[in-house]
């Protein structure tokens, strides 16, 4: 069974379901193995997402042609 994980929320939800299925116990060994493998993949996906860091602060400025531009923000420097 191929995993289709796009976002953190659904991955976490699937992981919870898998764990409770495994904890429910009533599974064939092969099915349990399959679920276990999926669970490990999902755990890894979730922790990767949590570690993925994009720490950035930008401020929007309006260019002459009216489009918005993103520039790094330094607190207290921009005047009003």
């Amino acid at each position, binding site marked *: 069974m191929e995993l289709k994980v796009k976002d*953190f*929320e659904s991955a*976490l939800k699937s*992981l*919870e379901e*898998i*764990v409770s299925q*495994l*904890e429910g*116990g009533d*599974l064939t*060994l*092969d099915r*349990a*193995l399959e679920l*276990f*493998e999926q*669970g*490990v*993949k999902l*755990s*890894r996906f*979730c*922790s990767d*997402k*949590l*570690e*993925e*860091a*994009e*720490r*950035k*602060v*930008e*401020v*929007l*400025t309006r260019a002459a042609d009216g489009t*918005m531009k*993103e520039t790094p*923000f330094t*607190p*207290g420097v*921009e*005047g*009003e």
Partner: protein
Amino acid sequence: MNLFDQRKIYTVLEITSEIKHALEKFGIVWIQGEISNFKHHTSGHIYFSLKDDRAQIKAAFFRNNNLYLKFRPEDGIEVLVRGRLSVYEPRGDYQVIVEYMEPKGLGSLQLAFEQLKEKLRKEGLFDEAHKVALPLLPRKIGVVTSPTGAAIQDMLRILKRRNASLHILIFPARVQGTGAAEEIAAGVQYFNSRDDIDVIIVGRGGGSIEDLWAFNEEVVARAIYGSEVPVISAVGHEVDFTIADFVADLRAPTPSAAAEMVSGARDELLSAVQSLFGRLFQSARLLIEKRRSALERLARSRGFYAAPNMIRALEQRFDEATLRMQQAMARFTTSLRHRERLAKARLAGIDLRMLIRGKTERLSRSRQLLAVNLRAGLQRRRSRLEVAAGRLDALSPLAILARGYAICRDAHGVVVRCAGNLRAGEGVRVTLAKGELDCRVEGVRLQPGD
């Protein structure tokens, strides 16, 4: 009869004008009362009556005077007005021409706040059903606030302290004064026009009710209500409530609290994932244990002796599955790190310069070899030429002539090989090694047998 002659008779207009004049002598008056029969005409003028328990007076509040009213007058509201008394001549009504009005009791801003709140509540802008939950793990936060205000400083300080992995995008907006509300609304709409914003925060630091007023304006409320992206309002201090707070999907008591809300979930989620991971392993181990004990029970049973092969096969299958599961566990816990190390090691092992040096050496060796081969070939060809030239020389008639032989040709230039072909008296040319002789045949001597 005389009495009648002294009567002063007014026309209706005259007496009305007199009354009007008399009333206008009151000058500016302040009147307190309750509004009734309130009408806001399309011309912009407002007409109503002021009343108390026992009396009422008509009032007109013209457009140029009522333009800057913050709150919305309506029936039943107790107000204090300042105005002048006058008469509306076509009707003979006397009335107060209002120049200024303020609500009694509540301040006018407070009243305006209550009125808008009530209006929007009725429209359903505060309905819980419309509110959207924040995403568990927001990535990119759009902040509508003043880039120089206290709010953004507070938020950034919190995010830095929490070491939050967030991308903050600031839409600079004035947060007080004329036009501020429109800028805040524009910010909310702008962030909705993008598709990468997970949460919007609108806010500012603390201040008076006038300072916070922009967040009580209808245009802001409607922009927040219309937002597809979840909005957190973070205005002023904990005690300050604004219309924006009621419409927003989530109210943060302060800007700092808003920063906590968008960054706080991460640590909890991390421990949740770790705990799920632990339970995953635990339950897998338990599953194996349960089967092992079941198997052991089976092994002790009498059926075991009856069908040992079957048990053995079962055992083998079990071992196989167990092994696969253990391998999977090991694989997954180590694979990524391991693969990374491998890749790094491979990368380090290849020295590009060594590679280039090797190729260069092979190239120059090839060049040398080529030169040697060329020279040898040339030499070989030259000696072959010399041998050929020697052989050619040996065969040359000139070489034969040099050894003392001569060639004799007849008058037609044909080489004479047989004396019988010539007669006495015929001229011949004899070619020697050096020079030629023109001779005449004296006699012909044939060899016997010719």
